């Protein structure tokens, strides 16, 4: 469900924003970068295109702004859905493809390595966790599921 911009404005109450700046003043990413949360909300609610801004990807989704917003704007949720649109347009950090591919290939974002497998044994844990990654049938089913959802196609499209 990639929401379009008008639905993002409506569903996350962006119009209620009174530009007080509490979100920016609370933002751990904003302290250390050019992310200006208040500006993103202003632009988005005014219908100005924000989807090409790299700063969309500087948010750590810590939810501090959303918790503190005096008007109840769902700031973090809005940023997440703006990213959904930005990604479809090809604005996303390419390095994330590694993690998405790892999930498709192994079902884990951080796959098991031989070194860690050794540490697991030394600690008396099973060499391999009893997860989907180490269960052939479950893994092939999981890949079938991954093939049917949007994220894989979207990434393939965006890379063209």
């Amino acid at each position, binding site marked *: 469900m990639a929401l379009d911009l008008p639905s993002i404005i409506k569903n996350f109450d962006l119009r209620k924003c009174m530009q007080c700046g509490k979100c920016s003043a609370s933002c751990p990413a904003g302290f250390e970068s050019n992310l200006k949360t208040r500006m993103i909300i202003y632009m988005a609610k005014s219908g100005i295109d924000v989807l090409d801004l790299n700063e969309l990807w500087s948010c750590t*989704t810590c939810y*501090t702004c959303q918790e503190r917003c005096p008007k109840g704007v769902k700031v973090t949720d809005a940023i*997440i859905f703006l990213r959904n649109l930005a990604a479809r347009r090809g604005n996303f950090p390419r390095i994330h493809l590694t*993690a998405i591919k790892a999930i498709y290939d192994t079902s884990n974002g951080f796959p098991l390595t031989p070194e860690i497998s050794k540490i697991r044994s030394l600690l008396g844990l099973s060499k391999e966790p009893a997860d989907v990654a180490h269960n052939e049938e479950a893994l092939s089913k999981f890949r079938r599921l991954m093939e049917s959802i949007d994220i894989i196609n979207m990434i393939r499209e965006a890379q063209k």
Partner: protein
Amino acid sequence: MRYSLFPGCIAKNLYPSIEKATSIVFKELGIELVEDPYTCCPAPGVIRSYDFDSWLVIAARNIATAEARGIPLLTICNGCYGTLGAADRYLKEHPESVERVNKFLGMIEMRYQGTTRVIHFVDLIKERLPQIREAVKVELDLKVAIHYGCHYLKPSAHGGENPERPEILEKIVECLGCESVDFPEKLSCCGAGGGVWSGNEDLSMAILQRKLNFIKKAGADCILDICPFCHLQLDQGQKRLKTRFEIPVLHLNQLIGLSFGIKDKILGLHTHMVSTRNIAKNAKKARKDLLQ
């Protein structure tokens, strides 16, 4: 009571010491944990940022796995909780999306019904403070810098602690006989979430540096976390920064394990990036004092 343990990618595949401490501590507490075939939760910062629906389907597959056993799903990670707790709540609040999700899950003979619960392990510990107090064998004399991380507390729709003034970890630390030290921006993010850890390393490290500066000034012996991803950032991240902080990092289950008298080697503390030698020494001394 039985729970289906959802260790998450990082505890399984990067910090097995956290998985080990979890199994020991929960056994001591008489809580049975079972293993089930899980996938990545999936990572909220990355997957949900790209496609909300894909995120929801993969999360629902995991929740449905615990549901098929008829027991609650237990996470030991804020990130997994941020995904599985939020997805479960979303599906329970949006019946029309359950249908949508089940169309996908049906293809692999699975089904989400919304009959189980997703629990953060801190909420189980919370209910057992007197039992934990009883089980403490060694009083570790440690100054602890508590790091709540973000997604146990927020969004506050999860319920539980007040995100601006949480108390539970302070209570647990006290119950173990340690001291919680105060520092500015204690509740702020470690800089790993939202895909920033992999997507923007400079920013991720700058946020971490700011946090560690405050913790160092507070004179903490160690940092305490409740999330393997925060743990990864706080432990491995120290090795990526120019400043040498050398502050040991412990997941809550590791600190409880030490307090229960379990040796640091058995808990795998030596597998961390930042040396935990001082913590181990402290625990050894406390164990000796006990014998005298």
